């Protein structure tokens, strides 16, 4: 059984002014490389009891290139739903947190001449473990939390082109082992508490489905010739990046999250090239939940 708890508002007295310069420099570095991210309320959470869950929805732009379908870039609009769940565990003295992330998104994009359309859709589930490397001693900054760790992500979806003949669509299935980092900083402006957060994830190794350069799906599924469609990937063949920058703020009795998400999903295998660049603005609702049942019950 879970009960909600809002603890950011109650933690206003913990925020201190000053010492923001170092943090701003750090955040500027993130922005320079298009970092945006999300972070979790790691400082205030009590180990293994409090769960932070966030449901967000967003809209933005999408740029899709899939050379199996077309050499041209398609541009349009993307809709995205995302659910995050984060809690600290008892591992390593409560310094390890676990994050579950699920996302579903779809885009409708057109070529520059507006003579053809593509529909792209993906869903993924990610599980990550994050070590809480408290940075306050190094940067001399209070209320700053830095976490990093491995993340496993499984995704599937595809891109459909509305006028191609025997190459009308290309399926996307992947399993990535990623490196991920979260940074969160709490501050107060005119006694109004804000929580800035940033999460960056980069695939390091994995597996990805891709037909060979000009292999038809008839050969794969009609004749059963699957050889070469499952490809090992590294950060060289899959130079992808997901950044999410978020601001949490209280509104009435709720905690709201607004985010900017930049995702570059890229793949370069079998002499085929794929990219999907997304710039999404999201709004979400954050809930803090208390775990009262199960093996974590005290």
């Amino acid at each position, binding site marked *: 059984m879970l009960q909600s708890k809002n603890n950011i508002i109650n933690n206003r007295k913990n925020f201190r002014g000053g010492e923001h310069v170092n943090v701003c420099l750090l955040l500027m*570095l*993130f922005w320079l*490389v298009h*970092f945006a991210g999300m972070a979790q309320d790691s400082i205030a959470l009590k180990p293994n009891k409090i769960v932070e869950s966030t449901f967000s929805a967003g809209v933005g732009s999408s740029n899709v*290139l899939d*050379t199996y379908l*077309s*050499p*041209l*870039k398609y541009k349009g609009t993307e809709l995205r739903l995302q659910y995050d769940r984060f809690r600290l565990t008892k591992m390593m003295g409560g310094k390890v947190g676990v994050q579950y992330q699920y996302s579903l998104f779809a885009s409708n994009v057109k*070529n*520059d*001449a*507006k*003579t*053809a359309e593509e529909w792209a859709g993906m869903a993924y589930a990610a599980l990550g473990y994050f070590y809480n*490397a408290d*940075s306050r001693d*190094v*940067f001399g900054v209070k209320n700053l939390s*830095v976490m*990093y760790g491995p993340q496993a992500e499984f995704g599937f979806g595809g891109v459909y*082109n509305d*006028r*191609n*003949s*025997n*190459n009308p669509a290309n399926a996307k299935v992947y399993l990535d082992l990623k*490196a991920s*980092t979260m940074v969160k900083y709490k501050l107060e402006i005119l006694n109004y508490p804000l929580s800035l957060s940033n999460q*960056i994830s*980069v695939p390091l190794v994995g597996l990805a489905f891709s037909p*060979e*350069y*000009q*292999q*038809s799906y*008839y*050969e794969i599924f*009609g*004749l059963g*010739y699957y050889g*070469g469609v499952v490809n090992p990937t590294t950060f060289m063949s899959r*130079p992808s*990046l997901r950044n999410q920058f978020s601001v949490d703020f209280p509104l009435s009795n709720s905690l709201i999250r607004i985010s900017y998400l930049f995702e*570059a999903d*890229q*793949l*370069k295998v*079998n*002499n085929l*090239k*794929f*990219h999907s660049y997304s710039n999404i603005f999201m709004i979400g609702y954050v809930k803090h939940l208390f775990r009262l049942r199960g093996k974590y019950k005290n």
Partner: protein
Amino acid sequence: MKLKSILIFFVCTLFFSCVEEEQFDNSAKGNFEALWKVLDEHYCFFDYKKEVIGLDWSEIHDKYAVRISNNMTNAQLFEVLCDMLSELQDGHVNLYAAHDVGRNWSWYENYPANFSSDVQKKYLGNDYMIASGIKYKILDDNIGYIFIESFSDGIGDGNLSQVLSDLAICNGVIVDVRDNGGGNITTSQKVANRFCNEKKLVGYICHKTGKGHSDFSELKPMYLEPSDGVRWQKKAVVLTNRQCYSATNSFVNEMRYCPNVTIVGDKTGGGSGLPFSSELPKGWSIRFSACPMFDAEKKQIEFGIEPDNYVDMRSEDALRGIDTLIEYARNMLGGK
């Protein structure tokens, strides 16, 4: 140290590289170069056509590049691009614009039709049956006649079992695929599977693995698998003409490996490359042969398949409402 590692991680992401493809501008020259490159990297018959018709794609570039000017109209550009594509002599190569479709139909336009729908109507009459696009009836000499005008329609196993059951009393069957320009290869295989009793090697397929003209995967065999439904056990004749193209070309190839089947008529039109699509900056769509298919002897069938018995429609027969090919087949099957 931990934070240094994290900062190093951040800095490493600065070297994040974009996966991009060369983009051409939307000028006449840009579209010309884009079209030439799409085919250069994707068309699958360059080596074969260099050997058979002396095609040199680099020479083709130089030959047509001089006709391109950024001042030309869309119609003029379209005409030059279509002229360039016609050098490939491939019915699967088409350029689609809002105002026209560029095509090369010389594979049948330069040959006798060997088919007349007006004459065929005299055989079908008004009492023929239709099963998911298949027209069929029993001719008055107890020969079954099946006309498949396209493999684009989904033909179900139930349809085929019903058709063959209805014709089971016949002495033989004529499968007429004249003027059938193709459709789904899976549908054509489904029909051919009704004429074999054992798994049969009928051809090979491969695909390009890279941009080079000779970058191909190994040949993968293609088989006919006998259907679990009703299968034809008597004699059969397949009627062909030059308009038998693409999936119908594959169908004829498959049928010639079946027992009791004779191919009668004209050479098929060919079209053994499974077509893919791409596009130009102008938004025009291009279709081209992408995955070549071969017969069971690993020989090309891009330029058609010879019939077992060459038979042309005689004009005097046509004037009298007689289909020379159907009559020839009826004689072969013992109907007359």
